[in-house]
Structure formats: structure tokens, C-alpha cells
């Protein structure tokens, strides 16, 4: 037998990783590099102007929109429909979601219906809405309302179901009224899920507003994109899409703000 091995070495490190770290500025840098490559491609002719306009052209189209004042016209029309449909859809959705979460009879009766209607692409219903509500604002608002209502219902009652039962039991054990338990324990407990639902429904709302405006509108970002598309004015089309992207980012940023404020007890 040889002498016991007394050679010492550091223990091999096996931990680390699996912890995403924020890297400042990388996201915007990728954006900028992509745009520069795109611009270079367009200018050198690698990307044909017919296939894709240069970013600079889209920027010019955007500036024209701004200068002519049409930007606010279109954006205003879209935002108005969006806000009305989304607000009413969310309020009604939260209300029905709570009812489903709280009452077995509503759950048994209504939740299968909700599950059945939820997966329908609401755009398919637009012709029906136009027949029911006319070609004007009502049918567009109704489409958004309908589209945002169902996910809100599902997220809300999922949130109610997930409220810690021990907290409800605590409320009962201290003799809190039914109404107090709903307002002070169930609603705040379901709030994280409700806000997640609003994030999802806001994205749906933006998709639907454009779809509605593509078919029947003179004003609105969707209408602008539609007109640009039919004229093959791809620079305007890209400008319109960029506006939609910014709109989506803004809404999601606002919801993030709301979450940080309303759920500040979390972290």
C-alpha cells in the first residue's frame, strides 16, 4: 500500500448559473444594430425597396403623420375604442369572475359557457357585431369588450380559487362579515391574478382594435395600416406597425407600474 495521498487541491466549483442577471443596454443595442444593418441592406440594395422599405423611409412616413396631425387623429380614435372596450370588458369580467369564484351555482352554470366562448377567435365574430351594432363605433367597442371580457373572467376566478384558504378561515374565525372577507381578503388575494389577466387582455385588445379597424373604419391606426397596405405604401405600413408596437409597450409599462404600486407588499 502506498502512503495516503496528502496532495491538496481546491474543491471543484460546481455551483453558479441559472440566475438571470439584468444586463443594461444590451436590449437597445441589439435593436440599434438590427436597424443599422437593415438600413445598410436597403441602401446597398441587398434588401429590395419593394420587399421592405428602409427604416429611414418609415421614419419619414412617421414624421409626415406627425406634421400633418393625422397621427393624433388615428391614435385618438384607436385609443378611445381601446379604452372604452377594455375598461368595460375588464370591469364586467372581474365582476363575473368574482361571482363564479364565490358562488357554486354561478360556477356550475356559467363557467362551461365561458370556457366554450373563450377560445373562439373573436375576430370571426366581427361581421356579427357589425350586423348587431352597426358599422360605427359600437361594433368595434363591442368586439374589444367581448375579447377582453373572457380572459378577465378566467383569470379572476382562477385568482379567487387560489386565495389562501387559511386566510379565509382566519377571517371567519374573527367573525368578519361575508362582505368584509370578500373585500379585504379575497379581492386583494386575487389581485395579482387579475392584473396578469389585464396584461393578457390588453394585448388582445390591441390585436382586436386593429382587426376591427382593418375592416370597417376611416380613422384609427388599423385603418391607416389598411390604407397603406392597399396602396403598397410599405413605408407607411411599417410606420403604423411601429406605432402599434409602441402602444403595446406603453400599455404593458403602465400595467407594470400599476403592479408595482398595487402589489408593493410582495417585494
Amino acid at each position, binding site marked *: 500500500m502506498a502512503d495516503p495521498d496528502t496532495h491538496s487541491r481546491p474543491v471543484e466549483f460546481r455551483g453558479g448559473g441559472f440566475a438571470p442577471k439584468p444586463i443594461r443596454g444590451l436590449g437597445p443595442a441589439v435593436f440599434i444594430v438590427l436597424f443599422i444593418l437593415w438600413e445598410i441592406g436597403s441602401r446597398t440594395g441587398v434588401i429590395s425597396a419593394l420587399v421592405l422599405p428602409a427604416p429611414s423611409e418609415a421614419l419619414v412616413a412617421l414624421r409626415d403623420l406627425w406634421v400633418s396631425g393625422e397621427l393624433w387623429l388615428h391614435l385618438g380614435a384607436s385609443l378611445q375604442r381601446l379604452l372604452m372596450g377594455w375598461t368595460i370588458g375588464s370591469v364586467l369580467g372581474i365582476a363575473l369572475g368574482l361571482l363564479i369564484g364565490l358562488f357554486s351555482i354561478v360556477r356550475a352554470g356559467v363557467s362551461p359557457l365561458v370556457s366554450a366562448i373563450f377560445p373562439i377567435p373573436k375576430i370571426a365574430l366581427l361581421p356579427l357585431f357589425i350586423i348587431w351594432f352597426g358599422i360605427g363605433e359600437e361594433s368595434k367597442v363591442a368586439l374589444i369588450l367581448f375579447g377582453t371580457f373572457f380572459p378577465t373572467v378566467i383569470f379572476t376566478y382562477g385568482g379567487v380559487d387560489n386565495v389562501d384558504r387559511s386566510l379565509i378561515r382566519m377571517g371567519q374565525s*374573527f*367573525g368578519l362579515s361575508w362582505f368584509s372577507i370578500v373585500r379585504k381578503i379575497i379581492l*386583494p388575494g386575487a389581485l395579482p391574478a387579475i392584473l396578469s389577466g389585464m396584461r393578457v387582455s390588453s394585448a388582445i385588445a390591441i390585436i382586436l382594435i386593429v382587426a376591427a379597424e382593418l375592416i370597417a373604419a376611416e380613422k384609427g391606426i388599423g385603418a391607416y395600416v389598411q390604407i397603406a397596405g392597399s396602396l403598397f405604401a410599405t413605408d407607411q405600413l411599417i410606420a403604423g406597425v411601429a406605432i402599434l408596437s409602441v402602444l403595446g409597450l406603453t400599455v404593458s409599462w403602465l400595467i407594470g407600474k400599476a403592479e408595482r404600486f398595487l402589489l408593493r*407588499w410582495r417585494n
Partner: protein
Amino acid sequence: MDLHLEGITHRYGDMTVLDGIDLKIESGQIVCVIGPSGCGKSTLLRFIGGLERPDSGEVLQVGNAPAESLNPLTYIFQDFALLPWRTVEGNVSLVLEDHDLSRHAAAEIIEDVLARTKLTDFKKAFPRQLSGGMKQRVAIARALAVKPAVMLMDEPLSGLDAQTRELLMDDLIDLWSREKFTAVYVTHNLNEAVRLGHKIVVLSRRPGRIREIVEIDTPIDGRRRGNAVLNQTQDVLWELLREEAIAADMELTNG
């Protein structure tokens, strides 16, 4: 106000969890309930506070709760059950809001119970910022705020580490010495039982029956750690529980 349990029997499906429990809980006493896991001690506590109903038998309230008691039967839970979206102060305030109290009176009660549980400096903190021991002190403050006639404590110290448990036990003894509250204290920790109990009820494994009631005469505030009588009682209790615990353990693994 006393509580009398008469013939409490309960089944979950065809499994009897509690079988003919008779027990008297006298005013000013702490009754500890111990037993192997799954013997139905927490279920029993839920019956006592009216959160669940037994299949047969009754929990009787003998005499009236003091007039100033806002919630005569008040729980302290193992998992604290604090609302994470309310501050320490807000969690105490929650249980006062449904009562007809002036803003001033409520604030006074909150101030008082937070002082008694040494939480005054933390009243604006959210539960996530607090250690387990602090959270349980908030829950105790909340319970004190409604001036209970009987405190129903469901393994209140079981979620805490050993040092914190010792400190909180001292706090409880302190609180009890100052005003002799009545309590039913469910635990699986024999040391807590001999330190805090006037009466220790030993339950058998499923179906839970009362195997023995051990009384300890040493005053609660005079019980020191390492006291010979207490150690001896603890040994007696362990002898009673040992076989039950082993059997209960086998039962669970056999499904």
C-alpha cells in the same frame, strides 16, 4: 366562561378521527392537547371554535363571555394567517374594523396590543419583512385585540426554530401571568405542554380518544426550565405517547 365538550365524535368518510371526547375547559386555565400526528387534535380545535361541526357531540359554552370581549373564541394559527398586503398595524386593525368602534378606540387597542407584544416599532412593516417569531407575535397581538374569552392555539410555535420558540414561550407565560386568559393549546411538543399547561390532555392515535389527563400543580409563572417535576411529567407523557406515535407512524406509511 367555561367550555364543555360532550361526546365529540367525527368521521372523515369511513375513518373515525375523533371518538367520544369529553372535556371541560375551565376559565383561566391553559389546557394543552397532545397526541401523535393525525389523531385529530387540530380538528378538535376547529370544533371548539365553531369553524367545523362534529358528526355528533356538542361544544357547550357555559356562562357568558365578558361583555368587552369582541370575539370570545379566538384562534392563533400555526401558519400565522397574516394578510401579506397589510402592515402589522393593518393586520391587527382588520379584526376590529367590523366592530362598532370609534377610530380613536380602535387606534388605542392597536397601540396597546402592539406594545404588549413588543411590536410598536414594527407597526408599519409588512409580514414578509418579519421573521417567523415576529409574525407569530403579530398574530398574538391580533388575537389580544379582540379580548378573547378563550384562545384557541393550533401549534402556534411549531413553525418556529427552537430559540424563537423558547422566547415566544416566555412571552406567552408573561402574557398569561398578567391576565389569566383561558386557552386550548394544541401541540405535539411535550416541552411546550409541560411549560404552559395546567391540564394536559393526551389523545390516542386514530380514532382519537382521551387516553389520560395529566394535571400540573406548579404555577405556570414558577416553572423553570429543567424543573424536576416538569421533566418527570414530560417523561411520563412521552411514555404514554411513544407507542401511540410509533403505531401512528406505521399507519401513515401503510396508507
